[in-house]
């Protein structure tokens, strides 16, 4: 009897099964978190933190590495959405938005740089680490905005700040790569051309995808369903194209979103809500992010990780609070905005891995430190954002009709005049 029709041992885990398991496990973690009244994201991450060592123990950790495709897709979507939220027209009308964006990113950069130099790290490497620290996690912010149904000036400004600091950080990293190349004794041509290629290449991919999307959009029916499919498809293509051309996904997708929003004078592309598909990818994104944060990194990174996190937070808060009053924000709003730009997550992780791939020495010196910092902010960040948006009064309040039904019986002065 030939049992060849039976699967052979050991089983090979397939991607769909992996994706499904991560999704369901993450979802359950999120719901558990909600029951104990903490942000769902923390639940997703904690599930990931648990799954990481577990996968390692049964020898499946390589699968988690391969699951990065999901991370790239999820981040692609997040970054595109973020780029689309960035409004250059608004920045022109209100200069304080760009000003606070640059203030908070630069202050975070210099605060972290100074801290790391005090610990006697190499200046270029410290600069790269500081550049990574400039970024705020767009995924954490956007998911919480969605979960808390947050809406208003703080929410809108936070999105623009996060887009700005992501953009500035990617550009700064690209520039610092030149110095790193030179230190690593690469050829001078490479040191100059590589950053230039990364920068212009990703801008071109973003612009081309935006142009192509608009061109297709003009030919198809202008309904949400059709445009949703178009945009989701183009985002996935852009992720694949960047990877293929060895370009940073971050910059390409930010640029795609930015061009799609700000260069569309004839309003061809509908601003569809990507949340439905986003939610699935977000869950997996946070689980995998959690799984790729070794718990012992904090022990290794230790004091330096904590110093980095503290310096970064101080820089960001100072930057936001210094400029916010000029933009007419009330104190509550300014503090809320400061809290909303604190989280650090998958975007920093992606940048860290991108740089580590190119410069193994940076990885040796900084991997554990930055991972430790991300680990802290991954758990603290969601609380900061949730608190900040609530403090600013932008989250969905309780429905007055659902409470005090008896007190409502008496008529009095309804509006309408």
């Amino acid at each position: 009897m030939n049992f060849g029709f039976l699967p052979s041992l050991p089983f090979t885990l397939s991607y769909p099964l992996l994706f499904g398991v991560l999704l369901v496990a993450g979802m359950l973690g999120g719901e558990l978190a909600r029951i104990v009244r903490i942000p769902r994201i923390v639940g997703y991450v904690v599930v990931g933190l648990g799954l990481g060592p577990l996968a390692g123990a049964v020898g499946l950790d390589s699968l988690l590495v391969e699951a990065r495709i999901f991370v790239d897709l999820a981040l692609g979507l997040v970054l595109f959405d973020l780029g689309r939220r960035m409004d250059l027209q608004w920045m022109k009308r209100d200069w304080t938005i760009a000003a606070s964006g640059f203030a908070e990113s630069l202050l975070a950069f210099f605060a972290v740089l100074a801290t790391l130099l005090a610990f006697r790290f190499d200046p270029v490497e410290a600069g790269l680490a500081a550049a990574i620290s400039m970024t705020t996690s767009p995924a954490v912010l956007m998911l919480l905005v969605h979960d808390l149904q947050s809406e208003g000036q703080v929410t809108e400004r936070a999105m623009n700040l996060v887009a700005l600091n992501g953009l500035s950080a990617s550009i700064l990293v690209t520039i610092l790569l030149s110095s790193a190349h030179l230190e690593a004794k690469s050829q001078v041509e490479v040191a100059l051309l590589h950053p230039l290629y990364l920068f212009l290449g990703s801008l071109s991919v973003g612009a081309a995808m935006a142009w192509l999307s608009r061109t297709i959009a003009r030919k198809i029916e202008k309904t949400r369903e059709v445009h949703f499919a178009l945009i989701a498809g183009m985002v996935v293509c852009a992720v694949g194209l960047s990877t293929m051309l060895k370009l940073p996904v971050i910059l390409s997708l930010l640029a795609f979103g930015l061009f799609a929003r700000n260069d569309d004078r004839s309003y061809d592309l509908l601003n569809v809500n990507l949340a439905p598909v986003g939610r699935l990818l977000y869950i997996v994104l946070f689980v995998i992010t959690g799984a790729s944060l070794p718990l012992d990194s904090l022990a290794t990174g230790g004091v330096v990780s904590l110093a980095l996190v503290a310096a970064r937070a101080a820089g960001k808060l100072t930057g936001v609070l210094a400029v916010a009053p000029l933009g007419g924000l009330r104190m509550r709003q300014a503090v809320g905005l400061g809290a909303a730009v604190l989280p650090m997550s998958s975007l920093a992780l992606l940048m860290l891995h991108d740089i580590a791939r190119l410069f193994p020495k940076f990885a040796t010196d900084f991997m554990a430190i930055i991972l430790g910092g991300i680990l802290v902010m991954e758990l603290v960040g969601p609380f900061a954002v949730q608190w900040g948006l609530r403090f600013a009064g932008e989250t969905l309040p309780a429905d007055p009709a659902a409470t005090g039904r008896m007190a409502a019986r008496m008529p009095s002065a309804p509006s309408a005049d």
Partner: protein
Amino acid sequence: VPLDFTVSRSLTFGVELELMVLNTRDYNLSRGAPDLLARLAKKKLPGEVKPEITESMIEINSAVNESYDTLTAELRLVRDAIVNEAERLNLAIAGGGAHPFHQWQERRIYPTERFLHVSSLYGYLAKQFTVFGQHIHIGVESGDDAVYLTHGLAPYIPHFIALSASSPFSQGVDTSFETSRLHAVSAFPLSGQMPPVHTWAEFNRYFDEMAGYGIVASMKDFYWDIRPKPEYGTIEIRICDTPLTVERAAQLAAYAQTLAAHLLANRRTEPVEPLYRVYGYNRFQACRFGFEAELVDPYERKSTRLREHLLDTLDRVAVDAQRLGNKAALEVLWRSAQAQENDTRWLRERYAEAKSMPDVVRLQALRWKEGAAQEAAVAGASS
């Protein structure tokens, strides 16, 4: 306690306009009103800008005006100031009686004590009341005149509906009505019209009775199409959708002022009961068909096309209009009626071109910002 009627100078007038506060991303309603109002509080403007039931609305109250020209100038000034402050917050402002595609359940009640109370009393009706109307106040010298004009203007309510209609779309669909906004008003228990009382004393007896039952606490509890407003010494016409431009808003106010002047100079003595037997039917006809509505005249016992009825009326009050300085305003309305053009038609045409509701609202906001003077240019750019 009888309601005291504050005496006003006859035929002074003013308007209230409820406006949409929009985001500029997809032109859905935003909850930008609190931030916008905080900014506007620092500006010196004629009249007042106030919150409304949900955080997606603001309301302009004009000052008391004597003429169409000053009212237009004032509204333009206030409009420009609001648009300017809104742009700093990345918000857009638009006229129109209802937002074409917003979902009412996403709205948030403006957290003042009164609005929270309204919301807890009326439940979902409060959020569905995110509709945008124009109210016109006409000054009168006595409570008796207020009661007389409230009845006297009732036959002309369909005119105001057809001329102001700007809410063909609701919750993302074409309702087939010229105005869908009025249905949101009709849902309230105290909507409709004033009962057939004839003097201010009689009105006071009615009010006392209702207050005695605990049904009302003040005049604000009546959501009538036209109501006396004793605190201001005015009658208030509440039937109009907020037009897409301040210019049209001023023209509607000028028409109301002219009609009031005409009715005060030519006192009518017919009984009012027959009027209200056909009132609901005529109102529905105007909401549904606009200029093509069939209006029933209970005194002549015949029906007339709304457009002819309106054109005849405009001709009949031309002398009063001339005297009040409203000639230019009424000529614009005459041409609109003649060509059967109103804001609802404009909105439907924009939708036919753009095939997307967010685009319609974007153009609506542009039209509000640039006003009727730029009309031709806007239409040209969008086609």
